[in-house]
């Protein structure tokens, strides 16, 4: 919203610099986003009369003008505009003048003709966006005077952003009222009434209130014999400076009143109203209206309309209808000012996608007391700008009168909330400055909720007003005296923090990908039916992810297509799954691998990676969190059929890993060896882990033995290891695989597994005699149970 400093001065005698005004508004909660001092960059612009206009000899679209700027020598100026004629008075930027945007006017030769200055459009002066032609000034404008003051360019526009609670501040009066409170300045308001006029308004029209709950008050006045024409210059200029396009002298007045006191108005052509009367009612099913923007709307019975005897002529508070529009032939106007229910206006405006200046204000709540004030102001202005005669009196249909509610403000509560004590007198003074009605009852203060402030409902709302005017910066800075009990962070947070650091130190980069993804992603990367967004930004982000797979695959793929092949990624985030009526949001971890772990390894000792790199990573993750993971064969469609595993803890499924299925290698840049894993961290956090118990460390030396076995190829390592552990008995301290071999020297159909065994006793030094029987028992079980044998040599 744009606010004009000169307009504020209608209400306030405010002389401080605009910067100071802007800062004070900011510090009172009225955000000034920008401040434009209009004529700041303009210098050397004067009024001039065009003495002659001739076509440019060398350019069809240019003219050659001789301009009198009140100096002995008239200026010859080349001009590209086409709306001027000899005799017009226009703003002229002389040689040496400067204009907004850093433009300097110099003597110039344009298509062979010398030009000694420039005649200006409104846009060139920063007055409005209008660049259709030169700014033609009234014929009685003196020549050769500085245009800055004349055009009102010695003014400041504040660009203000108002929070949704402050509907009362959406006008010049509203901002003036704020400033009056901030600076403790008197607010001047002129009282107008409706007593004068030519005959009674009630003889000409009537207002029927069929929906009083939606429209508490509806006021109407009539002016007859108006002559529709462009508005006078001062009115156009004020509107243009705040970004409102002038239309005609009646419509401009209604817009002016809205920007002035914040009350939206509407003007009907009285003669176009059927039976010349107004009915405020709910729309009937099937009714239609074509609004002033040219769109046709089908109305619903939940919408409030202004109708004549026959049909809707406006959507209440949102927009007028074409059928009752004021146009050039209008002679009688009926002016409307009303109070509409904020919710119904908002719903209707939303339904039609038609947010207007009017609906914006009604939604935020208007001042019901402004109904007569707006009408009287508009009538007096129309008489001035469009002539005609007003009817005396107004129709003031007011079936639901507003009662001022009173709120108790306790000084004790004020200090309880703000942390600084206020005397009742201090509070009273501040509330008075805000134009609230205040009564004292001993220590307590009774404040009436003013009709312009719909955001004030409870004691604390007034406490905010007190703090705002007192100044937030004047409150002390202290620390809370409360001591809240300490709490541990949740298990999931602890796991996430631990894993994040672990993975990063192993060379993995953390990703954060969007929670919403396309509904069209491969079904293999989903788990169950995803939750769908009703109003996504795009189909690409239409559903919530059910796994982290797609985000990881997509991240790897996009990097590979950008020629980055060596990737180590992880992501921790939530996935969203249906659970009957409810949604569950397990936290997950995904890991993605492509290319080499360390492309910087110039010695090439660390080049190959495979499923077991990822498996090892997961084993480590399990260990970090106190769990031994179990890996089993699995058959997920997202993975290569024979290169995948699922991960369990105590039989409980918590994740999977594998090489991506070749079907997803849809670009020849993509290497086959892309590995993905996904772990359910919530599942992890829910498992109770074993607290380690320390075992005593033996002081006696160990006996080490390596055992190389040849076994049928289908025999799995862990079964063999378990059997060795069992046979090893209590003396076996550890048993670990250290080599797998297949090929020369080994029967096809077999492979060699080599284990490193460590035997140790807690209380003595072991001898061969202790270990040999154990080795023999192991060999026996390998032969009997696994049909294997010791590897020869």
């Amino acid at each position, binding site marked *: 919203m744009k606010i004009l400093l000169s307009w504020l001065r209608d209400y306030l005698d405010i002389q401080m610099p605009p910067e100071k005004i802007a800062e004070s508004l*900011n510090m009172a909660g009225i955000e000034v986003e920008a401040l434009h001092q209009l004529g700041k960059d303009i210098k050397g612009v004067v009024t001039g009369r065009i003495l002659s206009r001739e076509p440019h000899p060398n350019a069809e679209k240019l003219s050659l003008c001789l301009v009198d700027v009140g100096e002995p020598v008239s200026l010859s100026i080349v001009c590209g505009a086409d709306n001027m004629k000899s005799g017009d008075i226009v703003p002229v930027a002389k040689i040496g003048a400067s204009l907004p945007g850093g433009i300097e006017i110099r003597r110039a030769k344009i298509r062979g003709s010398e030009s000694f200055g420039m005649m200006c459009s409104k846009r060139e002066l920063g007055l409005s966006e209008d660049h259709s032609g030169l700014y033609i000034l009234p014929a009685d404008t003196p020549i050769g005077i500085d245009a800055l003051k004349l055009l009102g360019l010695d003014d400041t526009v504040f660009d203000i952003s108002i929070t949704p609670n402050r509907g009362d501040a959406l006008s010049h009066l509203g901002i003036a009222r704020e400033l009056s409170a901030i600076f403790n300045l008197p607010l001047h308001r002129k009282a107008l009434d409706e007593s004068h006029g030519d005959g009674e308004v009630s003889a000409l029209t009537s207002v029927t209130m069929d929906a009083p709950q939606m429209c508490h008050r509806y006021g109407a006045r009539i002016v007859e014999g108006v002559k529709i024409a462009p508005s006078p210059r001062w009115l156009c200029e004020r509107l243009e400076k705040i970004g409102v396009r002038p239309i005609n002298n009646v419509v401009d007045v209604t817009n002016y009143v809205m920007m002035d006191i914040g009350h939206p108005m509407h003007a009907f052509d009285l003669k176009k109203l059927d039976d010349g009367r107004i009915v405020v009612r709910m729309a009937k099913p099937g009714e239609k209206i074509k609004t002033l923007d040219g769109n046709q709307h089908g109305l619903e019975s939940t919408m409030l309309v202004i109708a004549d005897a026959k049909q809707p002529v406006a959507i209440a508070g949102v927009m007028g209808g074409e059928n009752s529009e004021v146009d050039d032939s209008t002679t009688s106007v009926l002016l409307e000012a009303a109070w509409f229910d904020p919710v119904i206006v908002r719903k209707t405006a939303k339904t039609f996608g038609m947010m207007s200046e009017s609906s914006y204000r009604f939604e935020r709540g208007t001042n019901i007391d402004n109904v007569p004030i707006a009408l009287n102001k508009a009538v007096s202005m129309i008489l001035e700008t469009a002539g005609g005669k007003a009817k005396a009196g107004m129709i003031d249909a007011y079936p639901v009168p507003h009662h001022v509610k009173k709120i108790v403000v306790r000084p004790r509560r004020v200090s309880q909330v703000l942390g600084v004590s206020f005397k009742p007198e201090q509070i009273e003074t501040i509330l008075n400055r805000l134009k609230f009605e205040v009564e004292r009852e001993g220590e307590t203060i009774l404040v009436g909720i003013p009709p312009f402030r719909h955001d004030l409902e409870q004691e*604390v709302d007034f406490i905010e007003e007190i703090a705002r005017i007192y100044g937030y910066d004047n409150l002390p800075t202290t620390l809370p005296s409360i001591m809240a009990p300490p709490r541990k962070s949740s298990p999931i947070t602890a796991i996430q923090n631990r894993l994040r650091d672990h993975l990063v130190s192993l060379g993995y980069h953390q990703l954060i990908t969007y929670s919403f993804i396309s509904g069209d992603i491969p079904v293999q990367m989903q788990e169950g039916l995803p939750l769908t967004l009703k109003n996504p930004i795009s189909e690409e982000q239409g559903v919530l992810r059910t796994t982290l797979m797609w985000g990881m695959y997509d991240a790897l793929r996009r990097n590979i297509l950008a020629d980055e092949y060596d990737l180590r990624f992880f992501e921790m985030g939530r996935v969203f799954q249906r659970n009957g009526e409810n949604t569950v949001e397990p936290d997950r971890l995904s890991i993605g691998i492509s290319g080499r772990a360390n492309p910087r390894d110039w010695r090439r000792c660390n080049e190959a990676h495979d499923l077991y790199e990822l498996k090892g990573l997961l084993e480590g993750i399990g260990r970090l969190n106190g769990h031994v993971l179990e890996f089993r064969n699995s058959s997920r469609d997202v993975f290569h059929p024979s290169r995948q595993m699922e991960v369990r803890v105590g039989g409980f499924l918590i994740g999977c890993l594998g090489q991506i299925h070749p079907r997803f290698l849809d670009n020849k840049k993509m290497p086959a060896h892309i590995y993905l894993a996904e772990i359910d961290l919530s599942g992890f956090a829910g498992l109770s882990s074993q607290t380690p118990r320390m075992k005593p460390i033996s002081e006696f030396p160990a006996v080490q033995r390596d055992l190389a076995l040849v076994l049928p190829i289908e025999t799995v390592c862990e079964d063999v290891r378990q059997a060795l552990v069992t046979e090893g008995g209590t003396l076996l301290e550890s048993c670990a695989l250290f080599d797998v071999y297949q090929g020369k020297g080994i029967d096809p159909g077999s492979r060699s597994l080599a284990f490193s065994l460590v035997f140790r006793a807690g209380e003595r030094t072991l001898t061969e005699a202790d270990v040999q029987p154990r080795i023999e028992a192991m060999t026996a079980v390998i032969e009997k149970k696994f049909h294997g044998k010791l590897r020869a040599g």
Partner: protein
Amino acid sequence: MSQSVETLRQEFRSASDAAKDSKDLEAIRIRFLGKKGAITALLKSLGELPPEERREAGARINTLKDELSQALDNEIAKRGATEQEQKLKVERPDVTLPGTLPLPGSIHPVTRVAQEIADIFLSMGFFLADGPEVEEEYYNFEALNVPAHHPARDMQDTFYLETGRVLRTQTSPVQIRTMEQMKPPLKMIALGKVYRRDSDITHSPMFHQMEGLVVGENVTMSDLKGTLVMFAETMFGKRPFRFRPSYFPFTEPSAEMDIQCIFCHGNGCKICKGTGWMEILGCGMVNPKVFEAVKYDTEKFTGFAFGMGIERQAMLRYGINDIRLLFGSDIRFLRQF
């Protein structure tokens, strides 16, 4: 004879001084102390002396022998160490060849900033609470004093799910869920993803927020200021700050906190749009209507709440000019952190 001993000593000294390496020293040993060396020759010449002089001369030669052999050993040990050192120095590594352990990966810039902020509040005695991202409208709006059809809903363009729930537009619903389960005194923060229907270079439909809440007896707006100033000074260093009135439906009074622009130190620059100030968070005293929703005694308890966006802080700190980079998973971007 005494002359010969002295001459030999001199010869040895000059030879050993001239020796360049252990090879030369070995030659010296042979020349002086070898089986056919100068000392042996001297001892052999003892027979030519009168018997009464032999004893003394013999002793002098042996002293010389010990002396030379000791000096030679010392010299060899010294030279040897130096030579070893020299040899080791020849095997100089190329310090510019890269190391072969993988470089660490990276913590996402959003996580880095979020953790830093969270750590400050955790150290001030707050605890980290949590809530769902798919939220009931009640928790996201009504319980936070944002009724349906209120213009405040325009402040946050909401994603709706077909099930009727919403993606939370703020972390504030965690306040409600926490207060429903715990009684004051309470000091919590919540951190997580939030969603708004908004997308350009400074707005992402998904971003991260941190929320804080303190409730108890005699918790005041001055306490709010003190707590947040302490946070800001820890995070950004000691610099001027200000609190401006603002509007959030769930706080009353509401404020926004600005700190002096960290880039221009208040002189005005592009980043602070010439104001010299940077908005860092929104805050306020908990609206009694919110306490009513969670059945807290509004007369007894007061509290304050605050919330801040993480992405903006990360973008400012690391000079990231497009928010979409944060969620684009581009290794060339991630590697920089």
